[in-house]
């Protein structure tokens, strides 16, 4: 059975095609001003890669903040639900999944059937999500992908105002004027994020086998800070930003098997 999952994030659309619950292909596109069109593009790419047509797909599920704009989708699933499904599909013993996106950060607890049992969300505040790291990188005049390696050079973290992206930016500028080192500021950024995320996880209860997904999972600096804060090494899949699409595709597989109402 072939299913398709789509994650319509505010920045990027991600698509995964599963053949009998194994990943057959991936597609992605920038959301831009027309997420629906971008999603069609991403789906096309994934279909081509898998060598199939849209009519071969048994069921399509969409997730993500723009999930209601998804083309082809038969139903939607919450981002938390998708996280739970993807996390424990990738790591069967996982019971805690952390998903840090650009605009929202989530921690999800799930049971052995990959169903979500509890969750904590940070939303509507840029300091609580990936936007914080992006803004600080801009203020430091460092490329986003260089922040991680830069932070690993530091032994300590500078004291920065981590409570707000706007205040943080001006803080960073004055710290630079005072000749504070960039690695130490970068490390402070990741430590602050890790601090917040670890409180979210503690609220759910730290169950070992913690999975980290979302674009920020690719950042070595953040991962180092988070591991330090949590006291465990988080597990990261190969394509961490595709977990939403994967979870949606897995949801599609279970829903396709349900009797039609």
């Amino acid at each position, binding site marked *: 059975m072939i299913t398709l999952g789509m994650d319509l994030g505010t920045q990027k659309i991600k698509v995964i095609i599963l053949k009998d619950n194994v990943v057959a292909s991936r597609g992605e596109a920038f959301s831009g*001003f027309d997420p629906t069109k971008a999603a069609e593009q991403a789906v096309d790419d994934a279909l081509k890669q898998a060598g199939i047509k849209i009519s071969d797909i048994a069921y399509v599920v969409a997730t993500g903040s723009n999930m209601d704009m998804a083309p082809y989708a038969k139903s939607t699933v919450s981002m938390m639900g998708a996280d739970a499904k993807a996390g424990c599909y990738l790591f069967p013993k996982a019971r805690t999944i952390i998903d840090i996106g650009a*605009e929202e950060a989530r921690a999800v607890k799930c049971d052995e059937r990959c169903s979500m049992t509890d969750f904590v969300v940070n939303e*509507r*505040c*840029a300091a609580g999500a990936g*936007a914080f790291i992006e*803004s600080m990188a*801009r*203020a430091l005049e460092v490329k986003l992908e260089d922040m991680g390696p830069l932070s690993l050079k530091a032994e300590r973290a500078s004291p920065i105002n981590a*409570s*707000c*992206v*706007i*205040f943080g*930016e*001006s803080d960073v*500028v004055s710290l630079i004027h005072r000749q504070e080192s960039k690695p130490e500021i970068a490390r402070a950024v990741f430590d602050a994020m890790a601090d917040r995320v670890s409180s979210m996880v503690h609220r759910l209860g730290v169950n070992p086998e913690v999975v980290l997904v979302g674009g920020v999972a690719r950042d070595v600096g953040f991962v180092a800070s988070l591991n330090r804060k949590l006291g465990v090494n988080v597990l990261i899949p190969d394509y961490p930003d595709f977990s939403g699409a994967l979870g949606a595709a897995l949801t599609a597989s279970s829903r396709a098997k349900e009797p039609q109402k």
Partner: protein
Amino acid sequence: MKEPSTVENAVEFWRWQEYQRIMPGKSWKSKDLITAGVDVGSVGSKAAIMVNGEAYSWGIIRTGSNSPESATKALDYALKGTGLKISDLKYIVGTGYGRVNVPMANKAITEIACHAKGANYIWGPSVRTVLDVGGQDIKAIRIDETGRVVSFLMNDKCAAGTGRGMEVFADLLKIPIEDIGGISLKVDQEPPPVSCTCVAFAKTEAMGLLRKGWSKEKVLAAYTRAMAVRMANLINRVGLEKELVITGGQSKNIGIVSRIEVVLGVKCLPMPNWRDNGLDPMVAGALGAALFGKALYEKAQKS
């Protein structure tokens, strides 16, 4: 295109002139109870001299990188041309943000208490609610008829509504910050507020609205409305009681002030005309501190 840095491009509208004033028609004698308050803020340092509990002189300077130095400079400035020396001051109270060091102070008192006392002095006993919106924080204070603090909160976690937050929007819309209030009122109908108070997200939302064809005025109105609602919520948390005054940089933003008045259904008390020898709300903290100095001195004399 690289996004302009808000810090680089910010025009400091909240920029005020350093100045010193000796109240006309006031004088001192050596028998008088002369006290001083020194308020070292993150942006400005102010010192006020009171003679028998009446404002006599004050000075406002920019806070430098060294707080104790700024405190000394501010006090010297307030004393300039008065004929007074520091040794003539019977009691000095220091105040300001954080654990500020005012080296010559007999006592340090929190800025909230001093600001409240000062507001009571400037506007009189009818003031019960003070909203102080600075460059980087917002304070909401409920006071009684003597200027005693009844309830307060201080919000420096989130830039929304602070001077810094407004600068970001002024920057985005390329509007000179001193015009931001007036321009936000140039709409025929008040649009719905932006959906998120977070400045970073509101900025993204604003860019989307501009693309949809909204005018700058409409976008600014939507944002200002959201900020006013936020500030009204903070006031409601400490409890709104008339009369209300708004102090700090945002008191100059008629877009914010008028919308707060609409949301809360009250009119604020007007600003005193400090340019024409009225009292300056900027020195409310220093005035309050000097008044506490008088009370503490008198209390010590009694015992």
